[in-house]
């Protein structure tokens, strides 16, 4: 009986995701048509996932907010390049992924130009403090390519095919990265357990 209920719940969740995807596509189609209500709705629905994806161990909250704004501006400029017959999330996260990479490169350039000071300024709290579960904090210790795959799969609820499209790679490559990430997570959990 328990298994039956669980299966039914999984089926409902799957249908819920499909309904949500359809709603997002419809909103994007209206956004392309110039509907201001659709813009607001899209920003409200997608910003939490985008912000979670754009954040990271070395990104302060204000930097993450700046990246979110830049990401939305890129989405806005490229909105004509979305085809309403295709899933929306791979399109959105492909843009977010490159916004994050460009942000990382910018930060690295700034770090190289930085001058050493005698007294270290107080560090702004990073979003990792906001992330609730223990495993989510461990994600920040994964290599970037593995982290982004796990965040897209787990946080944004994307399918393997969607992640493959968003990262311009094959499903096999995404599976491999996810597998390595999970293996690393297990290692980290075991190490923490031993401590």
């Amino acid at each position: 009986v328990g298994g039956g209920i669980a299966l039914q719940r999984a089926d409902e969740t799957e249908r819920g995701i499909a309904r949500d995807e359809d709603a997002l596509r419809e909103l994007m189609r209206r956004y392309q048509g110039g509907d201001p209500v659709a813009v607001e709705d899209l920003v409200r629905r997608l910003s939490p996932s985008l912000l979670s994806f754009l954040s990271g161990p070395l990104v302060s909250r204000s930097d993450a907010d700046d990246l979110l704004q830049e990401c939305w501006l890129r989405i806005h400029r490229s909105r004509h390049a979305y085809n309403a017959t295709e899933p929306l999330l791979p399109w959105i996260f492909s843009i977010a992924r490159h916004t994050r990479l460009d942000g990382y490169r910018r930060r690295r350039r700034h770090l190289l130009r930085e001058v050493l000071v005698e007294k270290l300024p107080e560090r702004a709290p990073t979003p990792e403090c906001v992330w609730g579960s223990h495993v989510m904090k461990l994600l920040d210790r994964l290599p970037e390519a593995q982290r982004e795959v796990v965040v897209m799969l787990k946080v944004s609820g994307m399918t393997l095919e969607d992640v493959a499209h968003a990262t311009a790679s094959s499903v096999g490559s995404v599976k491999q990265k996810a597998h390595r990430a999970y293996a690393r997570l297990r290692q980290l959990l075991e190490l923490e357990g031993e401590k």
Partner: protein
Amino acid sequence: MPGDCELVDAMLDQRAELLPEKLHRHIEGCARCRGLHEWLISDADLIDVSPTTVDRLSRLLKSSLRPVNPLPPTKVSVIQASLCFVMLTLGFTSLLGTAGLAQMGRLESSAMVLLFTTGLILFSVSLARQMRPGSGTYLSKSMVVLFVLGLLTCISLLFPWHASQSFVAQGWPCLFAGLVIGVLGAVVLWLVVRRGAPVLPGTMGANLGATAGLLGVSVLQFQCPYQQAPHLLVWHGTVLVAVTLACTGIMVIATRILGRRK
């Protein structure tokens, strides 16, 4: 119980939230597996975005909101790019003549047409995908390597390996003509792909340049009367490399300049 731990790992790999009853008992006693399972079944930890930020972002986007015309499907862009390539090849070949085609045998001409067609399909599909973010893999490195190796092998095996006395004198006109055709081809292809929104401008430039360079090489192949392997590899090959590098550079620089202005 390492066997049960492995079963939990396998479920995690499949992103299966439903565990058999036996594993539930194992999870109760294994901290590591409990941590992983709790994470798997938990709701995603999303960072909250304040209503003020949502309002600010919405206002920012609405300030320049107007209806846009969506890009046609990927297939249409592939057909457009391919048609441009074929029309330009036919146009330039009819203008410059087909002396090269007369020099080649049936095997050589069939192999070269097959290679150019393969290259055209690869590059135009990749161009069309790069116009749309999140539309899947672009041209993979292994495909490019395979295509280049195929081209080099065909030329090396099918064409004679003797260089004439006037190797350089015969080569310059080919290089010049190839570059002119490549540049014109790049401009026309850019008109086809200009509405796209590439996330990697450098890769898009390289792809565009490679397609235009291939156009130059294919026209030269049918027009050039010097059908020897050294001439084809050095002078015709340089056209492909030079146009690819030039387009990559131009695209990267143009994106930086436009990015600074924005």
